[in-house]
């Protein structure tokens, strides 16, 4: 990683992803003619093919999109990323700026991408540790000791997660239930039962997707669109309400605790 790296990449971007030719209009995705040879590729198939370079079955693709729907796209403007989208719509911003801002904020810690990636990564490490002879019990105990929490277990607003049963039903319907990571996610829930850290949908979704052979970096890219339906719905709904009417606050609802009034 030195100056020579820059010299080498001047006007030079070698890639295995693809390209669009300005000369002849060809669009190539991983070596395939996107516009003419990949007509049967659904949009979700294309999304995952571009991310991973691999093709997935229609059941797997349905699982991925179904988990977006179940786990993340709520029509609820109080949730923090949805709230950003709704505030933008209600302040008469553009829908694209609104969605962009809200997606950026979905890289959150108490909800959103961090618990999703974290749960995925935790299950993969747990599986590796168990494969290496460690007990799940001791792996979980160490994780709690070092990090104080386990992503995918515990939830900000509600302790029971209403999305677990629908996620399981979806996976069973598609014949994708029962893989090792999904089973592990439930075994961890059993261990944590006494600790008031209820399993949330991030854990089961991570388990189900890990069972489809994704890496954690691939899973992160898959989850990026998980919230978008709810974000778009909340923005559009707020855009049709009278401007500036979403959660107005009186001055007195600022609860000030700083220094007393003083002169400069």
């Amino acid at each position, binding site marked *: 990683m030195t100056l020579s790296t820059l010299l080498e990449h001047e*006007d030079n971007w070698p890639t295995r992803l693809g390209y669009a030719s300005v000369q002849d209009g060809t669009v190539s995705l991983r070596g395939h003619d996107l516009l003419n040879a990949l007509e049967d590729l659904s949009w979700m198939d294309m999304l995952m093919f571009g991310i991973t370079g691999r093709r997935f079955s229609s059941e797997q693709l349905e699982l991925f999109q179904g988990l977006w729907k179940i786990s993340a796209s709520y029509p609820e403007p109080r949730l923090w990323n949805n709230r*950003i989208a709704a505030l933008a719509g*209600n*302040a008469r*911003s553009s829908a694209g700026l609104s969605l962009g801002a809200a997606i950026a904020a979905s890289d959150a810690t108490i909800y959103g991408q961090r618990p999703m990636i974290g749960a995925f990564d935790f299950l993969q490490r747990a599986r590796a540790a168990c494969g290496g002879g460690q007990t799940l019990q001791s792996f979980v105990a160490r994780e709690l000791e070092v990090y104080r929490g386990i992503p995918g277990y515990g939830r900000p607003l509600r302790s029971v997660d209403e999305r677990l049963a629908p996620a399981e039903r979806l996976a069973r319907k598609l014949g994708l239930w029962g893989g090792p990571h999904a089973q592990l996610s439930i075994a961890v829930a059993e261990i944590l039962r006494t600790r008031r850290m209820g399993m949330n949908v991030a854990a089961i979704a991570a388990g189900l997707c890990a069972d489809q052979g994704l890496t954690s970096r691939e899973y992160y890219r898959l989850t990026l669109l998980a919230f978008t339906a709810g974000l778009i719905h909340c923005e559009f709904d707020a855009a049709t309400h009278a401007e500036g009417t979403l959660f107005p606050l009186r001055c007195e609802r*600022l609860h000030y605790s700083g220094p007393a009034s003083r002169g400069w």
Partner: protein
Amino acid sequence: MTSDAAPRQEVIRTSIWQEEPEPDNPFAAAVCRCRGYDVYGELLGKASFIEYLCLLFLGERPTQVQAKLLEILAIALANPGPRDASVHAAMSAGVGGSPAASALMAALGVGAGGLGGGREVRVAMEAWEQLGCNLSDWEAFLRHPPHAERADIWPEMEHAPGFDPHAVRCATPVAQTLDTLAACGAGPHLPWLAGQRLTLESAAGAPLAMSGVAAATCRDLGLSAEQGEMLYLLLRLPGAAVHALEQAQLGFKRFPFFHGAVKYVGQQPDNE
């Protein structure tokens, strides 16, 4: 396996920024000149930040009056306060533990709009460009705002640009800012606005807003509508930044969730 023809050396054209490379590294600048001034060799420690900001936007070292205008405008806009939608959005990113950059992006995405945001300043400045300081033209414009024929990413303005549709009277901070700016010796827009405020408010059916003061100030600074929009977006971010940091510390449990506020009034739920 090239997707296109042989490379040619494309360049970035700019009248803002000039660099001289280090002798041993063509990708590292030894000297950076902003509109002719050596930034790191001379401006640093000599110019004020506000002067430098003027230089970036205006292209020239500012007059004393220009620097004063921008200094006052920057303070007036820096913190719209936590009740403002853009700051509310930044704090929403903060309490969720979202990245710092996303808090500022949220403030921008929300604060870009037609209600108190960058869009409003731009539309107001376009009105200044067209109407100047002609009172009867302004009154006609405010009473019968033009309608766009074509659809756009921006919704149509729903109130007179630069005025506050929800307020009953010009808020004291807005009036104080306008007075302070109008007394700086700039013109012609700020003094004219200060003098005609009541008449314009009557035509608009709403009191002057901070966005309207900002638009007039940017006009007196000599900025285009596009520049004014951009500057306004930029100057409103510090408050979003510090309030997002503060709420991130306090956590989502101490932040309003508006329990009870969302009321479903549509079709009755199915009995499924």
